[in-house]
């Protein structure tokens, strides 16, 4: 091969490789990206059936129910306008508590219950994920002071 051919081969190999990597990464991205919805959007039916998504909001005070002796927990997530029941069957994070903001990953089941496979809370107890904060602020606007619940 002449030096020129050699260089062209090298460039071709690199371009093909990078293109392949890019395609694969974009596919992984499309398949695995998770959108965020608050209870209002869930109530509005914006979530596609079976879609895995992030649900954010506040854990309604007094809504946390355990099945004693098991991991099963049920609670309600609210943005002061709408409420979504959540079911979860794993260990909850340390900072999870009633009246605090939280984000959960999971899917809606046929009855409209959000079945979470992961519940997140941040290290800092004063922390509020910005999207949750925005949802709550918007919800508060509409719900005035009727919302019962704890503090956040």
């Amino acid at each position: 091969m002449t030096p020129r051919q050699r260089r062209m081969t090298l460039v071709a190999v690199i371009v093909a490789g990078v293109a392949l990597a890019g395609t694969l990464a974009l596919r992984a991205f499309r398949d695995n990206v998770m959108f965020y919805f608050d209870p209002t959007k869930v109530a509005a039916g914006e979530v596609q059936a079976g879609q895995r998504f992030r649900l954010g909001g506040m854990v309604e005070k007094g809504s946390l129910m355990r099945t004693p002796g098991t991991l099963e927990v049920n609670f309600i997530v609210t943005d002061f306008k709408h409420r979504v029941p959540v079911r979860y069957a794993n260990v909850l994070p340390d900072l999870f508590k009633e009246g605090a903001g939280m984000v959960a990953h999971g899917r809606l089941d046929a009855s409209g219950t959000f079945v979470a496979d992961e519940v997140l809370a941040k290290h800092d107890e004063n922390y509020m994920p910005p999207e949750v904060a925005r949802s709550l602020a918007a919800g508060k606007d509409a719900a005035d002071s009727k919302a019962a619940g704890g503090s956040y």
Partner: protein
Amino acid sequence: MNRFLWPLIGFALLVVVLIVGLRHAPDKEIIASPLIGKPAPTLDVPDLIDSNRRVTGTAQAGRWYLLNVWGTWCVECRAEHAALLAIRDEGRVPIIGLNWKDDDAAAIAWLSQLGNPYQAIGADRDGRVAIDWGVYGAPESFLVNPQGVVVEKQTGVMTAEIWKQRFLPHMDAQRGVAP
């Protein structure tokens, strides 16, 4: 075209994204705004010092008041204490304290040590009232007008400058409208 310019162009695009991201970043003021211009949420809590009495918003009807949310556990509250005392001494507006998720004894000790800027203090022991007011974190201060509407809010430490620049003008503008 100079191929060595591409990194710079890529960086410029990134900066645009970052600027937009920065404008979307959670600004405490954005979170605070929904309440402004709306009627103040109900305020009805037991008095911190005399638990037989209650501190209510209706008792303040027809006049200006400043609701200040604080706690002894909050470092920044200590930082704004001097500013609150100055506002009290100025005598333009009574300050109603909302002692948030705090220990009563600690709160009373704090006031006897640092001075009491408040006309009355409600004890919001479980934080229920604070949620109605959309409190994001202590300290926060709400200025309520004689019609019972929230006109201004400070998230974070109150200072003399903020008081003068953002709060006082509201009262100056409405002077004489409703005593």
